[in-house]
């Protein structure tokens, strides 16, 4: 009785194990890194791919969804077309193709004083920043990334430096490959940084990207960070951002999900010092048979932190939108103020929306709240616009744009916000062809 169910290896798990043993000999890093890779892969194998009984992944069952794993990208660097993403947004660009940093494609102007290094170089030197935050996460896909990471970029902003030009970390997948990238961002005390993270790839290429970013934000620093997931329509996208924010710092983060066939974006924010403020926003726009899952963890480990979360999702066609959010207030973390709101808008009969907003609270002198709604476009609002003479499609577009704009504008960065709203408008303009 009470026998543990036997875990069968899926074809994807088998391929991953083969890929690890084939590549472990020539992955970057010193002996310590190689040992850490072995430990991490062991941890991954013990857990296996997340499935519906893995509570944090209950709506994204990778054992079912990830049918096969594509090969590693070719050793010879792929040439890529320059992307026309986010026109009009002035920014420096750090380009990562298939998990390798490509300085020759990057533009570092306006980043004076900022240290930009290839992750492969850091691994060879055994930099202790790698894994400092991601290592604490109990997640199979993060462990897999630790075992298999090939490259990426590390950005260090020294204390007090105010970087005004936005920096884009552009992840480009060139074809149906498995990509494992790792990025590091450190922002010194009192410094400021604006980050745009983008993920793109060609349509019809069944790529699988597993990307982890670790960021340490110093005391009194200010970081604005916008993430745009616009992968090709056959891609699987798995990304994790682990952030630690210092005392009196301000961290604003926006996740916009519109691409990929299956996507999961995880963000984990830990408060490292008191009086820090975080604003976490999300906008999902999906249609067809897309599946997009946003996972958010906010860990109030210290007193006097404030967090605001606003996540909006629009689902068309047969798309599945998912949001899981978790605010934890640790014992003794008094005077925490946390508010989380999630709203789903279903544009078609066959779309679905699942939400799990969690509060886990161990301190009494706190103000925490969450709200969640799900529904279709409000008939009254629509009627009002129709009565003013707007065609139905236009009225719908207007309402959906307004719905999403609230979350996008929450970021508080006009230039980035405007560029991201344009992405939303483009999606709405293309919507009919999607479904």
């Amino acid at each position, binding site marked *: *009785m009470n026998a543990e169910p036997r875990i069968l290896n899926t074809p994807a798990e088998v391929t991953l194990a083969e890929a690890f043993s084939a590549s472990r000999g020539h992955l970057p890093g010193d002996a310590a890194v190689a040992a850490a890779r072995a430990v991490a892969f062991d941890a991954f194998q013990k857990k296996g791919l997340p499935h519906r009984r893995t509570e944090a992944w209950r709506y994204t069952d990778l054992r079912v969804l990830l049918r096969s794993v594509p090969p590693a990208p070719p050793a010879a660097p792929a040439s890529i077309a320059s992307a026309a993403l986010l026109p009009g947004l002035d920014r420096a660009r750090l380009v990562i193709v298939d998990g390798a940093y490509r300085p020759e494609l990057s533009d570092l102007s306006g980043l004076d004083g900022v240290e930009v290094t290839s992750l492969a170089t850091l691994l060879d030197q055994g930099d202790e920043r790698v894994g400092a935050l991601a290592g604490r996460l109990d997640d199979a896909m993060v462990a897999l990334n630790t075992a298999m990471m090939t490259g990426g970029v590390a950005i260090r902003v020294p204390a007090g430096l105010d970087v005004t030009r936005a920096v884009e970390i552009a992840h480009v997948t060139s074809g149906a490959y498995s990509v494992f990238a790792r990025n590091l961002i450190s922002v010194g005390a009192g410094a400021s940084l604006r980050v745009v993270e983008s993920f793109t790839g060609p349509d019809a290429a069944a790529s699988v990207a597993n990307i982890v970013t670790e960021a340490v934000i110093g005391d009194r620093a200010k970081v604005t960070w916008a993430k745009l997931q616009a992968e090709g329509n056959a891609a699987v996208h798995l990304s994790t951002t682990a952030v630690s924010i210092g005392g009196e710092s301000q961290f604003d983060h926006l996740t916009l999900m519109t691409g990929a066939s299956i996507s999961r974006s995880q963000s984990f924010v830990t408060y490292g010092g008191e009086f820090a403020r975080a604003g976490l926003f999300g906008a999902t726009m999906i249609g067809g048979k897309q599946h997009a899952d946003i996972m958010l963890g906010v860990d109030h480990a210290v007193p006097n932190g404030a967090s605001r979360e606003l996540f909006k999702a629009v689902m068309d066609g047969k798309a599945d939108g998912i949001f899981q959010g978790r605010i934890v207030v640790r014992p003794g973390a008094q005077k925490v103020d946390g508010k989380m709101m999630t709203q789903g808008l279903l544009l078609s009969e066959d779309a679905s929306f699942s939400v799990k907003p969690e509060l886990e609270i161990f301190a009494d002198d706190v103000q925490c709240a969450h*709200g969640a709604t799900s529904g279709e476009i409000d008939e009254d609002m629509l009627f009002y616009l129709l009565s003013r003479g707007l065609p139905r499609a236009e009225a719908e577009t207007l309402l959906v744009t307004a719905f999403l704009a609230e979350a996008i504008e929450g970021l508080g960065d006009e230039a980035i916000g405007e560029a991201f709203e344009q992405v939303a408008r483009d999606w709405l303009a293309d919507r009919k062809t999607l479904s």
Partner: protein
Amino acid sequence: MPAVQETVDQVRRIDVDQYKYGFVTDIESDRAPKGLSEDIVRYISAKKNEPEWMLEWRLEAYRRWLTMTEPTWARVHYPKIDFDDLYYYSAPKSTKGPKSLDEVDPELLATYEKLGIPLREREILAGVEGASDRRVAVDAVFDSVSVVTTFKEELKKAGVIFCAISEAIREYPDLVRKYLGSVVPTSDNFYATLNSAVFSDGSFVYVPEGVRCPMELSTYFRINERNTGQFERTLIIAEKGAYVSYLEGCTAPMRDENQLHAAVVELVALDDAEIKYSTVQNWYPGDKDGKGGIYNFVTKRGDCRGARSKISWTQVETGSAITWKYPSCILRGDESQGEFYSIAVSNGYQQVDSGTKMIHLGKNTRSRIISKGIAAGRSDNTYRGLVSAHRKASGARNFTNCDSLLIGDQCGAHTVPYIESKNASAVFEHEATTSKIADDQLFYCLQRGLTSEEAVALIVNGFVKDVIQQLPMEFAVEAQKLISISLEGSVG
């Protein structure tokens, strides 16, 4: 505000020992041998004079149970239960179907008197003014058997069947066979399957078409024997257009060891029927160091099978060392309605993981969830709930509100809602807050001359008012008292 005054008085009267139902009745009992096996299942079935089909049903459940694993997803922690170290059947010796109350062991009657349960039909509930014309029919379950059911004759005249489930299995086999396990199948979950194999007694209610049950029905559960588990099974069926309100209460003696209570409750509401199910759960919560107490692992589910039917759950949870229950509604009939009102109070080392599931299957189904959690001492209080709309549930509507109040900095309050919508026209709204009693509210009360204990009682009463209002009057008073008792010692 007489109720508040009553709460305050009640708090004052209580000494160190807060649990007043913790006495043991010294009564001779008949027990099955310790442990669980097919033989024990056969023993229980034989004791109950059950027909062959019932025994088969139990054995099938038992065999399935052997293949299942204990669930671990709830936010509760306890040492592993040794299921072979329990007695699965215990009955007071003298209750071989007493014809009238006079034949019932006086020791038993005294127990119920002490608990304040009216077993004599003329009696009214003590301490409730204006209740002289309100009557409540009671089914009293002591360990594994139902000792007495009151007002049976009068209910029969109205066509209502209210009896022990063991009696129903013998007397109304067709009804039982049709509905038993139709809401909570034997394979449902670990504890429900265990219950299906070894359940001993519980209540059976059948309200025929168009009948409004003339009085409140109530079951009172008491665990007395040491080392026994109580596995009761309740089945309530409301035919087309019927209405019934059912109350459930429970207590247990104070013992050092943990005792298991794994019940299953099934409700079936057909077209236009309404079932109102209220629980005041006051099992022994363990002592101030977290020793002893009942493990309350319960599966409760209502099936709104007919169109326009309605099932309403109201619960006041103050007892048990561990509570793990999710009274749910399956909204199958078009335009059916589900409601869940809950107050969960935890103090000491209690752990509560409770909530509801509202599963919208039919068109234009509606549900409402109001949950108030109060955590004090070193307790953990979790709300866990699911609201889902299936593809065909057009026009489904849900409103959920769960608020948590923290008293003291050693406790935890958690909210884990799951919201799953597969229908665009389903409108779901969920809101949750967690906070402590606001300093300005306390200050206001204190400066009006209330002591801090009175002030907390007043504010807490206000906090839970939405739920208390849903309880039948007799229970509302009791519930209010219970809440203040549970919070005793947590202020200041």
